[in-house]
C-alpha cells in the first residue's frame, strides 16, 4: 500500500490558509502584566518586556494558525451593504447546515457594513464552502471567504476609523453596494 496519496491528488488549495492573519488576535494569558515585569532596573525591565511581547506575538501567531486549521468559521467579505442574513443563509447552506451567522456592523451606525461570519457545525462543511462558494456571486458581487479563528465579541464591528471596514476608508472607486465612494474620498 502506498505511504499516502500522491501530492497531486492531495492538492486542496482552496482549503489552505491564506496569508491573512488577524492582527488583533491575542491569546488570553494569565500572569504578570507589563508593568509588573521583574528586573533590577529600567533597562532590564524594558528588555524583559520586549522579549515577552515578542514571545507572545509568536505564540499568538502559532495559536491563531492552529485555530484556523481546525476552524468551522468563515469570514465572508465583499458583501453588499444590502445583503441580508437570509440571503447568506441560503447561499452558504449549500455546503452544509449552518450553526450561526453574525453580520458585520458599522461600529457607529450599527448597520451592515459588508462582511459577516458563517459558522458551520462541521469542518467538512466549511471546507466545501471554501472550495465551492468562495469566489462565486451573491447579490451580483464576487464574495470572498477565508478561515476565521472564531468569533469573539467585538469582532462583528468594522475596524475602519469611520466605523465601517478598513478597505472602505481608503478606496478611491465608486461602489454603489458599499456606500458609494470610500470614506476618505468622500471627505475630499
Amino acid at each position, binding site marked *: 500500500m502506498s505511504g499516502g496519496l500522491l501530492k497531486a491528488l492531495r*492538492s486542496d488549495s482552496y482549503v489552505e490558509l491564506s496569508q491573512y492573519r488577524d492582527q488583533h488576535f491575542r491569546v488570553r494569558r494569565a500572569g504578570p502584566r507589563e508593568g509588573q515585569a521583574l528586573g533590577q532596573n529600567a533597562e532590564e525591565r524594558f528588555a524583559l518586556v520586549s522579549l515577552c511581547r515578542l514571545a507572545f506575538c509568536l505564540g499568538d501567531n502559532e495559536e491563531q494558525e492552529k485555530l484556523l486549521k481546525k476552524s468551522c468559521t468563515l469570514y465572508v467579505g465583499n458583501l453588499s451593504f444590502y445583503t441580508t442574513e*437570509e*440571503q447568506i443563509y441560503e447561499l452558504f447552506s449549500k455546503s452544509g447546515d449552518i450553526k450561526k451567522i453574525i453580520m458585520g456592523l458599522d461600529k457607529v451606525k450599527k448597520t451592515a457594513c459588508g462582511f459577516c461570519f458563517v459558522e458551520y457545525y462541521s469542518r467538512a462543511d466549511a471546507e466545501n464552502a471554501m472550495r465551492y462558494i468562495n469566489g462565486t456571486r451573491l447579490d451580483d458581487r464576487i464574495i470572498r471567504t477565508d478561515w476565521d479563528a472564531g468569533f469573539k465579541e467585538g469582532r462583528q464591528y468594522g475596524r475602519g476609523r469611520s466605523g465601517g471596514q478598513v478597505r472602505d476608508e481608503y478606496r478611491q472607486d465608486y461602489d454603489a453596494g458599499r456606500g458609494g465612494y470610500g470614506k476618505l474620498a468622500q471627505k475630499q
Partner: protein
Amino acid sequence: VHRNGHGYCGQPHKRRKTSDANETEDHLESLICKVGEKSACSLESNLEGLAGVLEADLPNYKSKILRLLCTVARLLPEKLTIYTTLVGLLNARNYNFGGEFVEAMIRQLKESLKANNYNEAVYLVRFLSDLVNCHVIAAPSMVAMFENFVSVTQEEDVPQVRRDWYVYAFLSSLPWVGKELYEKKDAEMDRIFANTESYLKRRQKTHVPMLQVWTADKPHPQEEYLDCLWAQIQKLKKDCWQERHILRPYLAFDSILCEALQHNLPPFTPPPHTEDSVYPMPRVIFRMFDYTDDPEGPVMPGSHSVERFVIEENLHCIIKSHWKERKTCAAQLVSYPGKNKIPLNYHIVEVIFAELFQLPAPPHIDVMYTTLLIELCKLQPGSLPQVVSFEGWFQFALSDCLTQDLESPKPKFVREVLEKCMRLSYHQRILDIVPPTFSALCPANPTCIYKYGDESSNSLPGHSVALCLAVAFKSKATNDEIFSILKDVPNPNQDDDDDEGFSFNPLKIEVFVQTLLHLAAKSFSHSFSALAKFHEVFKTLAESDEGKLHVLRVMFEVWRNHPQMIAVLVDKMIRTQIVDCAAVANWIFSSELSRDFTRLFVWEILHSTIRKMNKHVVKIQKELEEAKEKLARQHKRRSDDDDRSSDRKDGALEEQIERLQEKVESAQSEQKNLFLVIFQRFIMILTEHLVRCETDGTSVLTPWYKNCIERLQQIFLQHHQIIQQYMVTLENLLFTAELDPHILAVFQQFCALQA
C-alpha cells in the same frame, strides 16, 4: 557513482533513509505523476526517459516504485494507457520487475475487493488487461481470469449485485483489450460471451424504474448500465474490435515491447461473498444529448458506441480525481485528448448532469457541480454556456404556463425556481424581473402574519394576553414573568385547568408563539435569540406530543409566506429540543400542510430532519467508540505497569461506557421510529388516494399522486444505508403483501438495489 538527472551521488548499500533519499522519492513521485501532462517533449520521449530513470533507480527504490505505480493504476485511471506503457517499457528492460509488479497488482486487487473498493478494483482489472497490450501479461492468462470472473454468474445464494460486478469488470475492460484477447483466444472468449449473454438475459431488472431520471424513453432511452455496456461491446465485436478513440502510447514502442517476455497471471479466484461485502449499486445511464445536438460540430458518438463509453468513463474519472480543485478539474476536462473529433462540451455537460442526477445520490456535493459548470463557462465562454443554456429550459418551462393550472408540473417548476431565486435575492427583485402576465407565478411576499395585530382581532380569545405578552417581551421580561402571564390563559380543551396550568393548552401556545415570533420577525438572528431566551417556556408548553405539534402549527401559521424562515425555525427547534424529529414528521403529514405538501420546502425540511437524526446517532456512536478505545488503552497500560489506582479509573470509564451504550440504543430506536412514522404516513395517504380513485373510477395518476409516490422513493434512496437496517421490520410490519401493488412496487424496487 553519479546518477543522471538527480545530481546526487548514490550509494547502493545504504539502507537508512537520508534526506537525499526522501528528496529522490518525492522526485520520483513527481515524475511519475506528471508524465502525460503538457510538455515540450513528445509523450513517447517522456515515457522513454522516465523508464530509463526508473530502471536506474530500481536497485535502491524498487519497493517505492512498485507502490507508486500500483497507486497510479488505482487512482489515475484516466491515464491508464500511459502507465501501462511505462510498465511495459520497464518489463522489457527488467523482466523480474515486471513479474513483481504483476504480483503487487494482484495483491492490491484482492485487498480492494476485500475492502469493498469495487470502483477502484475495476480500474485495477482494466490496468491488468491493458498490460496484455504492453506484452507484460500473456493473453491466455488474462482470458483465464475473465473466465473465473464470469463464472461468478453461476454462484447461487449471492446478491445479484455481486454477479453484476464481475460481469461489469470483464465487459468494461474489453474496449482496451478485446481485440488482443480475441485474436489469441477466440473460442474461449466466445464461450465467456455466451455465458455473459445468458446471465444478462436472466438477471432481474426490478431496480431500473427507481433509478431512471426521465420517465419517458424518448428522445433518450434510460438504459440499465449493464444492458448499455453489453450493447456497446456487441457493437464493438461486430466492428471487429476496431476502436479508435483510446490513446495507446504503447503502439509507438511495439518493436521494443514485442521482444519482452510476458508473465502469466496467477490463477485468480474471486474472493467469496461474505456478510460484510457491499457491492456497488446498479445504475441507469443518463443521456441528454445525441448526434442531433450541435449539428455544426463533430458528431457525437452514438449511445451504443464504445467511444461513448470510453469518453464518459474518462470524464467521470477526471472529476473523481480533481473534484476538490474546481479550476484544475475544469482545465483537465476541457483539455481531454482527442477533443477535436468529439463534441467535448456536450459530453462534459452530460457527464456532469449524469452525476448530479445520479440515484440514489450524486458522488459529490451538489454545489461542486454548479461551481464546476461556472468554471467551465469561464474557460469556454464562447461555446459552453450555450450547451448548458438554462434559458432554453426555462423558456420551455414558461411556455404554456399561463394556460395551465398552477399545480401542474411546468408552472410548479417555475414557481419553485422563482422562490429559490427570491431566497438568494429579495422579493421586489423578483417582481421587477417577472413580466406582469406571469405574476401569478411569483412567490408570496415573505412577511409575518400576526393574528392579534389589527383591530378586528379584539374578539379573538387570548387577545388581551397577547397584548400583555407583547408589552412584557418589549420590557425584557424573564421566563418566570412570561409564565405568570400565561397562567391566566383559559384552556379551551378542558373545563378546569391543572393547578400548574402546564398541561397541553393550545391557546397558551398560540398567544405565546404568535406574539414572540411576531416581535422577533426582523431577521433569523432575532428569531433565534427569541427561541433561546424563552427556551424554558417553549420546553414547558411543548412538553407533550400534542404540544410539540401545536407549536409547529402556530409557527407555520405565522410564517406560511416565508418557507425559508419555517425551515430555519424547525431546525433550531429540533436542535434545542423544543420539538423532536417525530413531531416534525407528523406535522409534515398533517392536514394543515396538505395544501403545501408538494412544495419543495416541505421536503427540504423533512430530509434535513432525517439528516439531523442520522448525524446525532453517528455522533453518539463515535463517543461510545472513543470511550471504549480509551478503556482498551487503559487496560493495556495497566498490563504494562501494575497500577492499583487504575481500577478506580476503570470504574468511572466503564460507567460512562454503559451510559453511552444506553444513549446509543435510545438514539437508534428514535431513528428507527422516525422512519417508521414517515413510511406509515406515506402508506396512509397513498392508500387513501388509491381507494378514492378506485371508488370514483378516476385515474390514479394525478400530479399529486406522482409527486407523492416519488417523494416516497426519495426517502428510500436518500437514506438507503440507514433504511437497509430495517428491511425485516419494513417487510413484516408495513410493506406487507396486502399493500396496494402501486406502493409495494416502490419497496420491491428498493430491495432490488442490493439484492
